[in-house]
């Protein structure tokens, strides 16, 4: 009976109900889409960081990351790599020599990270080849080739096939330098990364660095992020004494971005729903004030306060629920379309890439986020019903019946 009365009551003032239903639809649509947009942006940043820069897990000598000194390499690193690559949970793994050094051209110099890579394994791991915009990938038959970024190329006024000098400290702290010919130019969505990373073949640099046939980093890309903790723990047991870190530990700022992003979207959603709640409270207050006499009559007839409260709550609920399907539908429709086309912010690409974000955003929404939105909607309905219900419960039947 309560459900019947509440559901029919919302259509007593059609215009007013339609306005609030429309507001709920638009608010929910905006909230869902904004959440998906923000989620997509962060997801892309994290995916890009994992697949292009960090991988899921990295293994180092425990001392290496303190000062990035070459002498702290991974003993038997290449054997470790072989063991890791046999794991079914591992999609790709590669070993690297990471050296902090300097690149110099006749036009200038710049501090950089030299990534000594195994070309074929690095390709599986980070798809470096796919990021090349000029030139071609490493030639196995040639020595001292370098791949650097478009940004660095411009900064140093270099071109394909031109030579530059890499200088760094070797294992013993002596300065080592060598000339490298530019084989290719790459570009990623992350300008700061591009600004400071160059790639050479590991064989061209290990002897020069004084650690022939050794590596100081193993990067591991997993089949699924879900097995991250499990794999990390297994590797810790397999290689005790080695520093084995997940991407969240390597880049805590990225982890912070994810958690802050999560909080931000819920804050935005909360603000949207709060604004909606005030509209709904207003509508329901109007409804209660207009029906003072009727509520007084219900109290007189013997409808207890809990039932009156439930009637107002259900009415608020139905009002919100009536707007939900349209809002959700519009939200999912716009997510589906923009997932295909992407939302292009190319005009602001420099700003986006300076923070490591893609300028084309593909919104995405997880089931958990959708559940949370629905939970927030329910909370909003309850919150919106409280004030009008309180007003209704304060009514005195004798006084109300006079109105």
């Amino acid at each position, binding site marked *: *009976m309560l459900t*019947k*009365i509440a559901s*029919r*009551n919302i259509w*007593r003032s059609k215009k007013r109900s339609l306005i609030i239903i429309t507001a709920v639809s638009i608010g929910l649509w905006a909230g869902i889409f904004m959440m998906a947009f923000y989620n997509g942006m962060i997801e892309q940043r994290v995916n890009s960081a994992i697949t292009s820069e960090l991988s899921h897990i990295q293994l180092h000598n425990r001392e290496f990351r303190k000062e990035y000194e070459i002498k702290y390499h991974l003993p038997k690193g290449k054997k470790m790599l072989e063991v890791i690559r046999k794991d079914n949970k591992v999609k790709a793994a590669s070993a690297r020599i990471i050296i902090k050094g300097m690149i110099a051209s006749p036009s200038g110099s710049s501090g950089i990270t030299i990534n000594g890579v195994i070309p074929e394994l690095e390709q599986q791991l980070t798809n470096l080849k796919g990021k090349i915009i000029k030139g071609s990938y490493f030639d196995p038959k040639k020595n001292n080739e370098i791949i650097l970024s478009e940004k660095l190329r411009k900064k140093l006024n270099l071109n394909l096939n031109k030579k530059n000098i890499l200088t760094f400290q070797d294992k013993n702290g002596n300065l080592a330098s060598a000339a490298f010919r530019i084989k290719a130019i790459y570009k990623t969505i992350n300008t700061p990364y591009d600004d400071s990373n160059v790639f050479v073949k590991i064989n061209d640099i290990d002897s020069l660095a004084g650690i022939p046939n050794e590596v100081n980093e193993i990067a591991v890309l997993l089949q699924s992020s879900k097995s991250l903790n499990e794999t990390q723990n297994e590797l810790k047991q397999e290689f005790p004494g080695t520093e084995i870190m997940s991407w969240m530990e390597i880049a805590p700022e990225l982890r912070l971005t994810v958690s802050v992003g999560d909080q931000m979207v819920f804050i935005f959603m909360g603000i949207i729903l709060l604004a909606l709640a005030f509209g709904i409270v207003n509508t329901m207050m109007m409804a209660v004030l207009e029906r003072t*006499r*009727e509520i007084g*009559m*219900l*109290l*007189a*007839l*013997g*409808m*207890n*306060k*809990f*039932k009156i409260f439930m009637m107002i709550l259900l009415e608020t609920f139905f009002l919100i629920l009536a707007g939900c399907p349209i809002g959700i539908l519009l939200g999912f429709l716009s997510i589906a379309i923009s997932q295909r086309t992407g939302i292009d912010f190319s005009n602001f690409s420099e700003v986006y890439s300076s923070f490591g974000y893609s300028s084309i955003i593909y919104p995405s929404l997880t089931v958990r986020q959708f559940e949370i939105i629905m939970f927030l909607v329910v909370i909003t309905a309850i919150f919106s019903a409280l004030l009008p219900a309180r007003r209704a419960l304060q009514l*005195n*039947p*004798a006084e109300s*019946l006079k109105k």
Partner: protein
Amino acid sequence: MQKTVIDAHNLSKIYDEKTIPVYALNKVHLHISRGEFTAIKGPSGSGKTTLLNMIGGLDIPSEGFVEINGTNITKLKGNELIDFRLNNIGFVFQSYNLIPVLTTKENIEFIMLLQKRSKKETDQRVSELLKQIGLEDKINKRPRELSGGQQQRVAVARALAPKPQFILADEPTANLDSVSAENLLDMMLQLNQEENMTFVFSTHDQRVINRARRVITLEDGKIVADTAPTTIIHEQLLE
């Protein structure tokens, strides 16, 4: 002798007690027995509705108390009082006060559903009452689709449905044309006789007063007369 249903003791309602006290009711004593058909008359502001509200537990007296079948309802609070009204008192209001979103049938069964009576019992009682009020063909009509007289009949049926101890009707014929008013009175008298249902009205309407078996006259919050209608007619003729 019929059992006392309503027992009002020394009932007063005082407004603005701390400044200039206004007595809406002034030390009223009233006993109404089962099966009575009682009208409370008096000029506007004499305290008719206030008395009805006190008897119905819709308002709290400033002094005195009301007993319904031996229960002091003045002591009941909140939901306890609401539940008491639900299970013991039927109300008929001047402006019908049907639930506009419910149909005739749903309005009549409303109180029985609140009482959680079985569907079978409810359906049986509703069809019985629909027959009695002659609105079987309006079962699925909403109040706005009914005339004033029809709405008031539904309101009476709603009040009667759970078979309360008594029915309080606040000026039930005030908004009705003469034919509808007569029909309603006929119906209520019939129900009074057939079901021995106690009716207490507040009214200005001479037709109601003429049909009542007991007429209580209120003036300035006090009972100034409590008599049978024939006596009143006689007094009026003498005047």
